[in-house]
């Protein structure tokens, strides 16, 4: 019997090729999207799950509210890891490390290389993270002060085929390190990737100084909740002396002033998708995107499934006779249901085969847009295949169930006498399905437009500085730092170099903060400080709002001068700031050095747009180890060559490296742009599938009404009147769909926009545009078929039956 079903299924597909193509292709596209999204989601959720005992590894963090300033991030104090190891029995191991953001220059003899993605780590690092050692001992590799561990690739780059163990490498012309271990890169994906591990074991015993990362691994069987409670209580006791010393207040008073300070623990497997702090080691993913892509995949599959249901039931008249005959010859309803479900599953499986081909075809583009490296045929292919089969079978059974039950319900006496081509039942169901389909498509169009408007808004937003034509160069030597002021003239000798300055960090980097005191006010103020030189504001074109900028001629070196940003003035309620004195702590005994506030600048962004602008203070300092050059727009490459040449003369040990400032800052937007592009692609897919379904339905409707069309034409109807008759029902359905789509889209878009600190007001135009677009698509799709039907000869129509 099953063989009979298969034969009929394939012959039926062959007989109705157009509809088979619409069904199979539509479903194949839906499955392609589903598989791509599965690969993406599976990869995103696999981060950090390859570490041994990953479900016992946590990252310590800090959540604080100081004078209304929210601070949250993966920062921990220097002594925390050691305290965890020595004071808590639930801890198997704990490690402290400090990622090195910039590239570092490593030298082995004549070989000189910039290596990025490195870390200063303590000796417990490899007890928490199980790297495979090719050479060396994980327990002791980072114990000594000058130990370094290299990954295979870096060892090869520095030493070629030579054995690197025990060899000396020079770090930044400052220190020599001895290679104590060579490791393989870990399996799977992690929220960090390090090429070199430099030993750093000394501890700075200030608990309020949170500038390290600390990870801990609980013992097997340890209770997380009780450990966390114990840890928080223990560490609050440890910070108490620092609060009294540095903030000049008691713990009790500190908390009574609506301040808050607590340490947090985040499971390592949640970091990649849930942690969006500016202090992340590398750019993380975003759980929101995972949810959105899953949602879109479901919508796309739903739309493809609706096509299948609709076309199958619409064309059921053609199968009615067969159903009648089979029932008369002995088939029961369950047998017929199994037959039609088998056909549906066969079509789904054919679509799956095509989908795998399409996935391979689209994967490079998908990876390019999302900056991923997804692969279909890898170690996880079996998992992907099982998932795809499950979805396919579920789809085949679910989408096929309605047509199967509908068709198998035909009674022989209704269908065997005469020509049963008109499907009387199921019209309301079909219309409802079209409405659902177009609701989904319209929702996608509306939200896509809003996403692009938001991205465009962020692109055009005034960031408070001008980054085009500015290149940033890291300063590596003390000599350059000490003499930078005098070296400027060397570069300024070229007329195309418009300005030279330096700063501690630039937009796109991680800012630093400290606690300041305003003279005349008791409370401490958390401010994000930026060390700059006298030409910083000119180089980045930062606007002065009040007072004056830094002026070397006017300022005595012994006095500090400060410039605040607008947010500092507003958030901290500083009235008449210019002329007042601001103090910062200079030692552990609470000593404060005061300086003059000389100006207020317009806010400018350092971090991305998902963070609000922080209250900021600029100060002149020699601890500003990033140079910036503003260059004229003409012949930029030539100018950069000139700068490079001069730079290499001044810093021969450290080859010139630069980045454009607007690209550096723009990298923060990249993830959102990629997301927007992918969303657009998926929306187009959904629209195409909806249009395909509508096309199939419209052509079938036209075919069904052939006789009616012929009669109307004989009676005098024009082509346009026939077309209007055929399209108006579909137009009504699309309009009804929009009634549902608008409120749902509004809520979804509002929710998505709430993730940005800077967002557009909800616009009305995307809603109107999406409705018009859906109508145009529907009219175009349906009227193509209507036109053909309306133009056919009446005599052919009347002979039809």
């Amino acid at each position: 019997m099953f063989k009979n079903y298969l034969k009929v299924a394939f012959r039926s597909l062959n007989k109705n090729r157009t509809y088979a193509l619409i069904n199979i292709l539509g479903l194949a596209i839906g499955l392609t999207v589903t598989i791509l999204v599965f690969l993406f989601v599976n990869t995103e959720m696999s981060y950090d799950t390859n570490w041994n005992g990953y479900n016992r590894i946590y990252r310590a963090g800090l959540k604080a509210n100081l004078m209304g300033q929210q601070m949250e991030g993966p920062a921990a104090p220097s002594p925390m890891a050691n305290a965890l190891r020595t004071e808590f029995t639930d801890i198997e191991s704990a490690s402290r490390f400090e990622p090195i953001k910039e590239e570092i220059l490593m030298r082995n003899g004549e070989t000189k290389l910039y290596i990025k993605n490195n870390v200063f780590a303590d000796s417990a690092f490899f007890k928490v993270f199980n790297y495979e050692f090719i050479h060396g001992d994980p327990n002791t590799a980072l114990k000594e002060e000058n130990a370094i561990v290299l990954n295979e690739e870096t060892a090869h780059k520095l030493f070629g085929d030579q054995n690197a163990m025990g060899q000396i490498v020079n770090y930044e012309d400052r220190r020599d390190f001895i290679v104590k271990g060579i490791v393989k890169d870990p399996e799977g994906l992690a929220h960090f990737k390090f090429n070199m591990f430099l030993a750093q074991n000394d501890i700075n015993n200030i608990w309020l100084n949170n500038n390290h990362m600390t990870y801990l691994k609980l013992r097997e069987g340890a209770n997380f909740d009780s450990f966390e409670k114990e840890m928080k209580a223990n560490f609050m006791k440890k910070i108490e002396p620092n609060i009294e010393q540095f903030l000049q207040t008691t713990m009790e008073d500190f908390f009574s002033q609506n301040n808050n300070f607590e340490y947090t623990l985040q499971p390592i497997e949640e970091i990649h998708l849930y942690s969006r702090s500016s202090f992340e080691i590398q750019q993380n993913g975003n759980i929101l995107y995972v949810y959105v892509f899953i949602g879109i995949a479901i919508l796309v599959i739903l739309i493809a499934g609706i096509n299948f249901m609709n076309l199958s039931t619409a064309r059921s008249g053609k199968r009615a006779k067969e159903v009648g005959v089979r029932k008369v010859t002995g088939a029961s309803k369950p047998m017929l249901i199994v037959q039609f479900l088998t056909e549906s599953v066969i079509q789904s499986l054919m679509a799956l085969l095509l989908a795998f081909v399409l996935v391979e075809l689209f994967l490079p583009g998908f990876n390019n847009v999302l900056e991923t490296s997804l692969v279909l045929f890898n170690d996880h292919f079996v998992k992907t295949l099982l998932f795809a089969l499950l979805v396919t079978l579920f789809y085949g059974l679910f989408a096929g169930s309605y047509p199967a039950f509908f068709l198998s319900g035909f009674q022989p006496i209704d269908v065997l006498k005469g020509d049963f081509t008109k499907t009387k039942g199921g019209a309301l169901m079909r219309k409802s399905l079209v409405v659902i389909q177009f609701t989904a498509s319209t929702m996608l169009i509306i939200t896509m437009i809003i996403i692009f408007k938001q991205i465009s808004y962020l692109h055009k937003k005034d960031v408070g500085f001008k980054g085009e034509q500015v290149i940033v160069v890291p300063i590596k030597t003390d000599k350059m730092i000490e003499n930078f002021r005098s070296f400027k003239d060397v570069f300024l000798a070229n007329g195309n170099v418009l300005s030279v300055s330096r700063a501690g960090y630039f937009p796109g980097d991680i800012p630093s903060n400290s606690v300041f005191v305003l003279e005349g006010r008791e409370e401490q103020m958390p401010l994000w400080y930026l060390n700059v030189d006298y030409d910083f504001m000119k180089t980045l074109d930062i606007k002065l709002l009040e007072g004056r900028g830094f002026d070397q001629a006017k300022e005595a070196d012994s006095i500090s001068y400060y410039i605040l940003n607008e947010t500092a003035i507003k958030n901290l309620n500083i009235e008449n700031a210019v002329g007042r004195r601001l103090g910062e702590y200079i030692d552990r005994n609470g000593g404060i050095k005061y300086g003059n506030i000389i100006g207020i600048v317009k806010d400018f962004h350092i971090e991305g747009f998902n963070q609000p602008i922080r209250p900021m203070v600029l100060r002149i300092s020699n601890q500003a180890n990033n140079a910036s050059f503003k260059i004229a727009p003409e012949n930029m490459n030539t100018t950069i060559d000139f700068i490079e040449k001069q730079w290499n003369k001044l810093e021969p040990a450290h080859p010139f490296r630069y980045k454009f400032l607007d690209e550096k800052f723009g990298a923060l937007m990249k993830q959102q742009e990629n997301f927007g592009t992918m969303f657009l692609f998926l929306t187009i897919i959904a629209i195409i599938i909806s249009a395909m379904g509508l096309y199939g339905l419209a052509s079938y409707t036209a075919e069904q009404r052939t006789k009616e069309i012929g009669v109307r034409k004989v009676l005098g109807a024009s082509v346009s009147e026939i077309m209007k008759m055929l399209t108006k029902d579909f137009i009504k359905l699309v309009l009804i769909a929009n009634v549902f789509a608008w409120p749902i889209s509004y809520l979804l878009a509002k929710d998505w926009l709430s993730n940005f600190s800077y967002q557009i007001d909800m616009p009305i135009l995307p809603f109107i545009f999406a409705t018009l677009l859906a109508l145009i698509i529907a009219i175009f799709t349906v009227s193509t078929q209507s036109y053909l039907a309306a133009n056919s000869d009446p005599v052919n129509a009347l002979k039809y039956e």
Partner: protein
Amino acid sequence: MINLKNLTKIYRTDEIESTALNQVSFEIEKGEFVSIMGPSGCGKSTLLNILGMLDKPESGSYKFMGTEISGLNEKGRSAVRKQNIGFIFQNFNLIDELTVFENIELPLIYNKISASERKKRVNELIDKMGISHRASHFPQQLSGGQQQRVAVARALITKPPLILADEPTGNLDSSHGNEVMELLCELNEAGTTVIMVTHSSHDASYSGRVINLLDGQIVSEKKSNVGQAAV
């Protein structure tokens, strides 16, 4: 074999109620060849559908080989039907996606006959019907007469005791129509009970009894010596 008593069938829509059969009663013995005649709308197709257990009466009794059918649900009727009744339709009702062989084989599949047994029976029958050279052809490739022969073969493949034919020659020319009628006679002579609905007096003359219906009621019956199978 068949006993109908006071059989009534009413069709209802939202606005209209029409009585298709009104207190119809008769008996048909095993081996008879009976024609049911009457003008359009008289209820003959309705009667045939009820006899074929494709429809249920509103009221009255229908006994088939001693079993009361009118109270059975579709599952029960289907079980009796597939073992005992073969159907021949005016428009053949072959499945276009199946070959001649596969169309004829279909009732055997639903009666769960093994593949080897099915092959044997179908080949025997199509040889007998003279259509074995068309076994792998599709219905669209056959003439009307050949299609009806396939339909007859399909009706016979389970060797049912009763054949119901609804205007079996309606779509055929006279030559092919006569062929089909002679086939039905042969079957009847071999012991199969045949009930046929027809407009054609010529076709009715092949049967042994003619029942005339008008407005859902039997208005007359006529017997002849023709069409009486040896009991």
